[in-house]
């Protein structure tokens, strides 16, 4: 269906070849995962399939790509619209119409489909994707998972043979991600659609894919069945790391397979390790907090206390009130009722240097904080702001990500590097509390590890609390001491990470699913328990 022969790609004014001499072919009805570090060229590879690269972006392409027998060299992306459906990283930015139905019809209108065909296909897709209930709604008011389904639907109405998706679950909570992925699985199996997907959170997709294209960053590309590529790859999901750590004879991609391989470990009995006591110094006190936007109550009178040195993850579905809680704590959202105290002070009244010293905040789009022309200028600004020795911010940054050039423009940094830069700037104020809103979107495993280490170090050396909202269960398992689980504005669970994650099947990390009912969340938990065994 898709055939790459000796494809190389280079962008003008760039010395780095994005893709070098890549040859592979994908059969009809295959589901293929494209993985690689951030900035390795996954998106470019995906956009080569329908010719958006180089027709839309520029760049020099060598070799030939053909889709269903048509060479992308000779036709524009639009002429492939009925063969290749493409869903971008952020679906909201790709929507053309306001209303769900109209959005679905857009592609067919553009290709002058007759009216009766359009009506029929829109109905089909609405049913297939379970969007019938929202067909007249404005797209802007839908949830993240629904928007993603609309974007997939808009591609599907054209009856494409190939569906290309760029990180379709990165903004979704685990449940919505599951919905989208099982939908893709169904398309592959029932309709023989060929699916090519790029994703960082391998733990979510790995069980569904047939083959993997692994772009290794040094120009090398590995292609093969999932198990084969993952056996040697550097970026691997926890389930593979577990297999490696336990020296299992084979690697499995699904929980079921690995469970079968680890029966003997689960059969042993282990002494339960005692929990680490959390300090009783209360830093954040949330008391009967209610926040309303018009008629909508985002938080319904919640109360909690967060102590020094605690790393607390705020989890829950999209729209559960996570961001509202975070915003109230950093003082950007006033409470409708109730109160929030940070070190017995009202966070809404903090200003300037006092704010920098009290609360460090990393927003959902880290680049919101950046405006200087180079990494050097950003770091120098932070040094001046916080009256610390010149170069301290950059020194901290180079410890997080070595080999970063001072002259780089912040826009040219990879996602991971940019997050590291923002984190360094925020931490240069030496804040008494760190708050992060979904910090790990678009980060690969290596960048995520670095990030987790930096947060742990901050929390333990200064004995200060870290609060983060995230959908990333694996990160939470690795990092957090405690989980606050929100649903529709209420706290539905508040307890140690272990208790909360284990009790919810949807939010349990991979290792916990494999090792259930043993109380382990991460690979290191398992290894530690095995080492302590006499």
């Amino acid at each position, binding site marked *: 269906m898709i055939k790459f022969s000796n494809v190389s790609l280079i962008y003008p004014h760039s010395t780095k070849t994005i893709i070098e001499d890549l040859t592979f072919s994908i059969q009809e009805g295959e589901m293929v995962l494209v993985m690689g570090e951030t900035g390795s060229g996954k998106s470019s590879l995906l956009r080569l399939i329908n010719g958006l690269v180089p027709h839309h972006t520029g760049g020099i392409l060598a070799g030939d790509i053909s889709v269903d027998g048509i060479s992308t060299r000779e036709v524009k992306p639009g002429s492939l619209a009925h063969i290749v459906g493409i869903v971008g990283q952020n679906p909201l930015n790709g929507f*053309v*119409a*306001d209303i769900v139905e109209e959005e679905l019809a857009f592609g067919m209108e553009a290709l002058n489909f007759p009216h009766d065909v359009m009506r029929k296909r829109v109905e089909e897709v609405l049913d297939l994707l379970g969007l019938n209930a929202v067909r007249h709604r404005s797209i802007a008011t839908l949830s993240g998972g629904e928007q993603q389904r609309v974007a997939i639907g808009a591609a599907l109405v054209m009856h494409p043979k190939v569906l290309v998706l760029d990180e379709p679950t990165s903004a979704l909570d685990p449940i919505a991600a599951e919905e989208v992925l099982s939908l893709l699985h169904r398309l592959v199996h029932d309709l023989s659609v060929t699916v090519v997907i790029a994703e960082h959170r391998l733990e979510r997709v790995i069980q569904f894919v047939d083959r993997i294209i692994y772009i290794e960053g040094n120009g090398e590309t590995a292609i093969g069945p999932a198990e084969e590529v993952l056996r040697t790859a550097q970026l691997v999901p926890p389930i593979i790391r577990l297999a490696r750590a336990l020296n299992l004879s084979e690697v499995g991609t699904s929980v079921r397979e690995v469970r079968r391989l680890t029966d003997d470990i689960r059969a042993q009995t282990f002494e339960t390790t005692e929990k680490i006591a959390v300090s009783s110094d209360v830093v954040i006190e949330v008391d009967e907090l209610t926040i309303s936007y018009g008629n909508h109550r985002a938080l319904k009178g919640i109360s909690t206390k967060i102590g020094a040195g605690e790393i607390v993850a705020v989890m829950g579905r999209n729209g559960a009130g996570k961001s509202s809680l975070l915003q109230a704590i950093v003082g950007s959202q006033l409470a409708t009722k109730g109160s929030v105290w940070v070190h017995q002070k009202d966070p809404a009244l903090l200003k300037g240097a006092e704010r920098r010293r009290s609360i460090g*905040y990393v927003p959902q789009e880290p680049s919101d904080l950046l405006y200087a022309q180079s990494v050097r200028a950003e770091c120098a600004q932070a040094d001046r702001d916080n009256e610390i020795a010149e170069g301290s911010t950059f020194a901290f940054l180079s410890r997080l990500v070595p080999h970063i050039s001072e002259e780089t423009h912040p826009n040219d940094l990879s996602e991971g590097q940019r997050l590291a830069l923002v984190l360094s700037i925020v931490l240069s104020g030496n804040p008494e509390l760190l708050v992060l809103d979904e910090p790990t979107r678009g980060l690969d495993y290596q960048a995520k590890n670095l990030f987790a280490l930096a947060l742990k170090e901050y929390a333990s050396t200064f004995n200060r609390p870290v609060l983060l909202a995230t959908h990333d269960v694996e990160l939470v398992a690795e990092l957090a001491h405690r989980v606050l689980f929100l649903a529709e504005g209420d706290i539905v669970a508040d307890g140690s990470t272990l208790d909360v994650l284990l009790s919810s099947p949807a939010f349990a990390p991979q290792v916990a699913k494999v090792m259930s009912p043993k109380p382990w969340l991460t690979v290191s938990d398992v290894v530690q328990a095995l080492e302590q065994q006499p």
Partner: protein
Amino acid sequence: MKRSLHPLTMWIWALLLITAVVLTDRAWVALGAIGVATVLVKVRSDGSPWGRSYWIALRIGAVILVIRAVVGVLIGVPIPGTTLFTFPIIDLPSWMPGIRLGGAVTLERLSSSLHEGLIIATVIALFGAATSLTSPHKVLRTLPFFIYEIGITLVIATSLFPQLAQSARRIRLAQQLRGHEKVSWRGLALPLLEESLSRSLQLAASMDSRGFGVSRKRSRYRPEKWQISDSAVVAFTLLVSSALVLA
């Protein structure tokens, strides 16, 4: 769901009212038109992102009203009448005859400035009401094909504005939380520009890959039909407006 009118109906309604307001040039007509528009927007707005544009237009109108009043009072030709208070007169060079800065402020001068401001504000508010009541996207869809191509470009440009405002708010907030109370224009403009550029590129890529512009002809998923209710609205407005103008 509310019964929907033809997309052009509310625009014709707004244009007729605007004509009436401008031609009659009376404050009570203008205030009446704003009143009617407010009620209609309250009742019929469908909660889409465009629904808020009326309230924004009202705010812009109010600002213009104030500016017009201040400018009218300070600069310009004096109108004789009851003097309310007097500003010191600032002498202007002799090559600017007939224009005066400061001087006596008469009741007549103040009221005529306010009146002009009100008319301008009403025109803006009525346009805002039309946008609130029918999304401009729907209007463009009804236009003939050769305009449609230009129209879709306009749609993209206009759909960026609400998003821009939202992004600007978000970025300003983030920087305030970094402890920078006074956000410099560079601090705001650079991230904003970067974001809107990348958004437009993504939108263009999405339209491109969905076949936009491939076929010279386009079909319509939901053809808009002109109905009796549309004719009724237009006829009624026409009647009222002409009665006001002729009276």
